[in-house]
């Protein structure tokens, strides 16, 4: 416990960025992620890096675009409405095949919404919130420790797959205090970036661009992106399981919802109800194959989200009709409590466990 420090998820993101050798941070204030730009404003310059508060979210993401073009590790952070503003830039960055990291500390929405916790940006994040055929590798931490651990990973994935990587959090994961170990067990991969615009000198001209007038060239770019996504789908699926083996019903939940569900699993098992928890850690690529395997045990599923039902669609695609998929959600900034989820499980459990009766 000697190295354990108490900090917020948002603060752990900053220390994780430093551990991941982030060169440049560009941000704009919005609750509930303000601890990130606040701490970055001292942490980055103290470590010899760049931190700049842009004049808007649009500006911040385009500063990321510029910094990433030079081969530097660049990131931005915001919360739901701010992330909406960044979508054009994210699409451009994906098309220009540039690595970067985008942190979204989700709040209640839609619209300006409120500053409480939400998970209703799932579609926007994993289905491509901007225009065009692109994907964003998405990691969802459920603890302050994972906020720290996932940042170096996110930068590595961004470099490897040459595209934006999202860290999808919520107001609770961002603002709760928890113990974190600021270890340095990371193997940061220094990938050569021969495409970077760093001054031409003896080499050929490098062009970073997202405008391809020739349709055949634009299709080539798309096919290259898709080939990388297929690789990511093969190699970068991440998930965690809790008491899934003998479960009659398995929760599927990420981030804060998964934390709540973990407690429900324990409460239910005390009453003889066999629940389990499947937690997608990478939301894209989604752990569909593993979910399909789990259906063979005959269990049913319940997706639990702080939304009206978004990830549940990916669960249904993965299950592909092999089992029943139920849903429980609260939205608009409301966080479901363990007791209300357990009550709902009890209402539907018998039906779900014996669908024919």
């Amino acid at each position, binding site marked *: 416990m000697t190295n354990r420090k*108490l900090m917020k998820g948002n603060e752990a993101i900053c220390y994780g960025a430093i551990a991941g050798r982030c060169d440049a941070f560009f941000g704009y204030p919005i609750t509930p992620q303000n601890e990130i730009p606040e701490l970055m404003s001292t942490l980055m310059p103290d470590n010899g890096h760049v931190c700049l508060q842009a004049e808007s979210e649009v500006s911040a993401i385009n500063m990321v675009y510029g910094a990433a073009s030079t081969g530097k590790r660049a990131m931005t952070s915001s919360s739901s409405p701010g992330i909406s503003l960044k979508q054009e830039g994210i699409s451009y960055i994906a098309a220009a095949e540039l690595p970067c990291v985008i942190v979204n500390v989700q709040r209640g929405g839609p619209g300006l919404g409120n500053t409480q916790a939400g998970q209703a940006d799932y579609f926007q994040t994993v289905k491509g919130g901007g225009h065009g055929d692109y994907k964003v590798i998405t990691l969802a931490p459920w603890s302050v420790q994972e906020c720290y651990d996932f940042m170096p990973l996110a930068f590595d994935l961004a470099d490897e797959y040459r595209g934006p990587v999202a860290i999808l959090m919520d107001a609770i994961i961002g*603002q*709760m*205090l928890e113990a974190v170990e600021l270890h340095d067990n990371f193997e940061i991969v220094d990938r050569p970036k021969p495409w970077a615009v760093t001054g031409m000198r003896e080499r050929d001209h490098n062009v970073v661009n997202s405008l391809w007038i020739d349709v055949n060239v634009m299709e080539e770019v798309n096919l290259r992106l898709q080939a990388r996504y297929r690789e990511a789908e093969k190699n970068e699926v991440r998930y965690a399981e809790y008491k899934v083996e003998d479960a009659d019903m398995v929760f599927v939940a990420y981030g804060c919802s998964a*934390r709540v569900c973990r407690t429900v699993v324990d409460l239910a098992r005390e009453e003889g109800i066999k629940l389990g928890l499947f937690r997608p850690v990478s939301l894209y690529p989604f752990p569909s194959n593993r979910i399909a395997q789990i259906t063979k045990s005959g269990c049913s599923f319940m997706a639990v989200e702080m939304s009206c039902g978004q990830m549940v669609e990916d669960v249904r695609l993965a299950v592909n009709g092999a089992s029943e998929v139920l849903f429980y959600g609260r939205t608009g900034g409301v*966080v479901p409590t363990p007791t209300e989820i357990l009550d709902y499980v009890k209402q539907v459990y018998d039906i779900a466990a014996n669908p024919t009766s």
Partner: protein
Amino acid sequence: MLKRQEVKIVGMGGQGIMVIGQLLAHAALIEGANVVWFPCYGPETRGGLAECTVIISSDEIGSPVTSTPDTLIAMTQPLLDKFAPTVKPGGVIFVNTSLAQPPKYRDDCKIVEIPANDIATELSNPKTANMVMLGGYVELMKPVKLESLKASLKEVLPEHNHRFIPINNTALDKGAEVTSR
């Protein structure tokens, strides 16, 4: 140490609700427990709703939120009225009786009365009412040691407020005296 403690601390912005929650969380950390602190507050700096939850456990902590805390520490009447009905049957409600009436309707809970603002005013620093409440809670429920709280002050308070550590220590002791009687 208790296996698991869920405490909700409520009051109004400016009363030091968040800081006593953080102090408790830090004390639990240095005692090697698992702990989660979670805040909920309005946009106002002072006068709005301020609420935080601290969960301390020897096991891994799942949900960082609870709808039914074991213990409630209420600093003002409106927030006491809002949260007293949520406390688990058999739970404990600490009431700052300088600013709130004990909730007699919760006869299934233990109600602990601490006139925190009066005690803090006697110490010539009314702002330490939060520490008086925290001292009273820790002495009675023992989620952590009083000494761990005191050791956490220098970690939790910003450096420019370290000059107030002695008066905060005194306030913690005064609160502890109330519940050790």
